[in-house]
């Protein structure tokens, strides 16, 4: 391996560069969080994207014979209360071609929990670092249910991510596959540093619905409800409510691990690059059963944070806005936005439930 000699001056220069990168990242993250807090969370009483959702509660049990390295938080057989929230991003219309999500907290409280994890459909994301996320946001330019036209023209990886993530007319939130995409820290009992990705599948092997295969870029941008589609704005939430009431909803939480090494390619952290399942198999972490759904108010109040994690399972450090880990860094620094939204509910009241009217293809209450 070639080594390069670095003078003291160069070392200082490099160190200064790294510190500058971190400062810029912090400024980025804080500025972003502040903007969201002021102009979205507080002013409009909305989340940044996943407003259209339904929450539920139940119990989660760590599997009895874990096949992944031992971790005190995931102690075998241990039970946790669990609250989840399914949502469709970003529109207030279940019948649109949307990304669907599940967010899990190991608690029945709407805010506090020892472990939160947020996942979306699709194994890959639509953006890969802080700077690309901001570009993604700035290029949304939504109109009448059509968005990201220029973004998808320019970023083919965004196209790939979108193709894998959107689900049109799924039969249920329950039969979809959800991925955390970005890796987190996993420091087990053995003290070996690992990186972890999570996913959620239905407990029983059910066919995933809503997956589209024939796309053009224009179709991807057009997320509108299909003409003559009889499904209502809340059909998925209603279906989930009925399903849970009748039989409950059972899921499995899985983990995929990568052992850290000094010469890891940065692409390991890239949420657009899948870890090979042959060398990085998925293992069951826990099974959980949702026994009841929550009303609109409780669902809306329920909130999640990557900061709600044990230190040994937390967010990986990021070095710059180009670092793939900077996405979780942004999430971790957006607490102010969560708090601003809670405050807005107190000040302005709760946003109303989504009505079953014909105001379709919209992403805001005011539209």
């Amino acid at each position, binding site marked *: 391996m070639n080594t390069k000699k670095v003078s003291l001056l160069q070392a200082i220069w490099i160190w200064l560069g790294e510190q500058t990168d971190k400062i810029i990242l912090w400024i980025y993250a804080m500025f972003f969080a502040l903007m969201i807090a002021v102009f979205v969370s507080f002013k409009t009483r909305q989340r940044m994207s996943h407003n259209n959702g339904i929450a539920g509660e139940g119990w989660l049990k760590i599997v009895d014979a874990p096949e992944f390295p031992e971790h005190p938080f995931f102690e075998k057989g241990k039970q946790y209360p669990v609250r989840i929230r399914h949502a469709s991003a970003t529109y207030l219309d279940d019948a649109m071609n949307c990304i669907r999500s599940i967010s899990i907290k190991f608690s029945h409280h709407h805010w506090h929990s020892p472990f939160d994890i947020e996942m979306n459909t699709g194994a890959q994301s639509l953006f890969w670092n802080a700077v*690309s996320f901001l570009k993604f946001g700035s290029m949304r330019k939504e109109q009448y249910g059509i968005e990201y036209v220029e973004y998808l*023209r*320019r*970023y083919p*990886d965004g196209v790939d991510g979108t193709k894998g993530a959107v689900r049109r007319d799924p039969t249920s939130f329950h039969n979809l596959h959800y991925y955390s995409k970005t890796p987190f820290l996993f420091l087990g009992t053995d003290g070996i540093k690992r990186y972890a990705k999570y996913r959620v599948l239905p407990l029983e092997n059910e066919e995933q619905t809503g997956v589209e295969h024939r796309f053009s870029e224009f179709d991807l941008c057009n997320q509108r409800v299909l003409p003559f589609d009889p499904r209502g704005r809340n059909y998925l939430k209603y279906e989930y409510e009925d399903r849970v009431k009748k039989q409950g909803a059972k899921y499995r939480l899985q983990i995929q691990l990568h052992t850290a090494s000094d010469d890891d390619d940065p692409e390991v952290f890239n949420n657009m690059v899948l870890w090979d399942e042959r060398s990085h198999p998925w293992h069951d972490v826990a099974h959980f059963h949702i026994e009841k759904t929550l009303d609109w108010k409780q669902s809306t109040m329920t909130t999640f944070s990557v900061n709600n994690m044990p230190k040994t399972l937390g967010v990986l450090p990021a070095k*710059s806005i180009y670092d793939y880990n900077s996405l979780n860094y942004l999430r971790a620094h957006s607490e102010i936005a969560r708090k601003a939204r809670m405050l807005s509910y107190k000040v302005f009241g709760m946003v109303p439930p989504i009505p079953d009217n014909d105001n379709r293809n919209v992403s805001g209450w005011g539209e």
Partner: protein
Amino acid sequence: MENPTPESVCEECLKKTKIHYREDGRFFMPRLLSINHLQLGNSKILHNPLVLIVEWLYRQYKHLRDAWKRFIAWLFPRPTKVWCHHADSALVGQIHYADRDNLNTPIHNLRVEFWGRTRWLQWRKLADGYSDDEGKFSLQFELREARNWKIYKTQFEVYQTTHVYFESEKPKVALECCYVEQVPVSNLTGMRYNLRTIHLHLWEYRRDTPVPRTEIKNVDNDSPQYYAQGRLDALFEQITPLEVTKAKHLLQIEQAPETISLAQIQSDYPENLTVCIERKLPGYTRSDEWFGRRMMNGMNRGTFLPDKENHNMFWVKYFGVCNYEHNDEYALPTVEIKFALKENGLPTPTEIHITGQTNAFDKNPWQKKVFTPANGEEWLYAKRIARVNGAFSTEVDEHFTGTHLNTEQYAIAAYRNFRRSPLACLLFPHLKEVALVNHSADTLLIHGYIPSATALTENGLHQRCYELLGMQDWKNWKPMKPLSEAHTCAKAEKMFWDLTIDYVEKFFAENLEEIKHHWIEVYRFSQDLVNHAVPVFLSSIDWGKLSPEEKQLANDRIEYYTYQYSFDTSAKRETVNGELKVVSPITTSRTFEESPPEDMQNLKHVCAYAIMMATYMHTWINEHQYDDLGEVLYSSGGLRYGNKERGILAPESDLSISPDLTRSTQMLWFTNFLSRTEYGFITKNEEGDVNPLFSKMLLDRKEEFAKLGVDVNAIESRTNI
């Protein structure tokens, strides 16, 4: 010399009338504004001293501008170092042709580069590469280098090959930026950034003609290629005096026709070979001996088809108007000349058969007249008709179609496809500028002079060229077979062909692996050649609709042209859109590994053929034009019917059948102009673009060529004007 022999006179006159280029350099000498402003009438010649000064100042401005560009290039160089340690991002996209029929046709192997510019204006190369077989590119670069705070802008650039030159005997490819797209730095976020489909106007085929021609939107500033400055300088020096002479004649003809005569026009132009010989040996250039000598070894390099019954007799045929659109002013009957070979190996005419209209009154196209030396004066008239028709056929069929148009189809296919293959270095030096020359010829000759000075209309010319191009194929092409020791033209042709084959073999031996590696370029070259080729001669006519005479003529033409152009009728050809394409495919395999062994041989043959057509075959006619077409009464592009019953069977003294004064000065201007290119020779290698090996091989055989009357230093490296 008290008793000059014809040979000594010819040699003396050849030397005397040989065209030399020497720069005059006088400041106030009239200048041609641009080669692209040449006109059949009055070209844009600058006479006025004030205008000359302004034009001089403009040239100085251009020099200053060029110097400034060079200074900027020196101050802000484009280093070859690529600023990338760990490529984590990519610029992607694809490059297609921009013309409406080829919007989905990819352009392969184009050089693409991604550059950043620092705040202190220095350039940093961030990535480089090539478009792939499908026109797609993916330039891997390091995001942090592109988004370095020092970089204030980034741009994507596409380069096309403009020309090839040799440095220390090694070929170099000159690239020119043909497309620039600014990429906002803020849009670079990692992963891939898509520049989408870039449509470029590169070496497109014209849509307005079935002949494979290059689309040239504006020859001055929107053309796939431009003339080299050295060529323009040489041409300006040569042509300006001729232009002034022509302008004077045209003015006299318009303002005071009584002050000018054909003899005066003739004497105002430099003396040509026939005038010179005629002055020293009166009557010799109209003799049978000279006729046979020039038919065999002159500009026409006639094709001697053996007589079917008597194999010691030969036929040279010049087909006339045939079924092409023609006017009623000029005659162009079909002429068939029967020759016997003399003991000295030179041919002597024994019969001349003239089929077709020879006067303005009897319009029967199938009327036939046979002349022999026993016909006295009429034999002289028939020979003149044969010379004139021979000149027309040579210029239109052999010169313009056989070399200019034929070479252009190889040029456009080569420039569209050879980028990384060494074949670019082999072919480009010989294929350059032909598209420009042909573009000028469209206006000057096909639209201008020829329809006004010969029997065919512009439509007729287009049709004739289109059909005759249907006999030009590289497959199994061979040079003319010498009939005798005196057939120096054929011997020299064969010698040059053998030399070219040898050169191509050596080039392939040196570059074989790279040629194989970039075989896709050969495949696409072949595809372009075949798909855009014209159909095989008369392959799409409805024979059932032809009269017996027309059938006979068509069969005669097929037989003669097949022999003349060494056309292999048995070669396997492709049918595209219902047309049997004349150009044989070189390969049908995308990779060398998949191709049969003969494909490599095909490739060598087609390269040698293209070089042969672009250099020697064109040079022969081009350089001899002034010898055989530099005396109006001796030969011209056409004879007028006149107003007498005898029509064109009349003596030279009957000026009513020879070209009128305007056409005469234009013809002499043309033949001078076309023969006086004097730039772009293989051995002189003025632009350093000819492979030194080729020059050396030619010079090594200088004496052998000289014995056959060929000066190797006068063989053009490309199809000149």
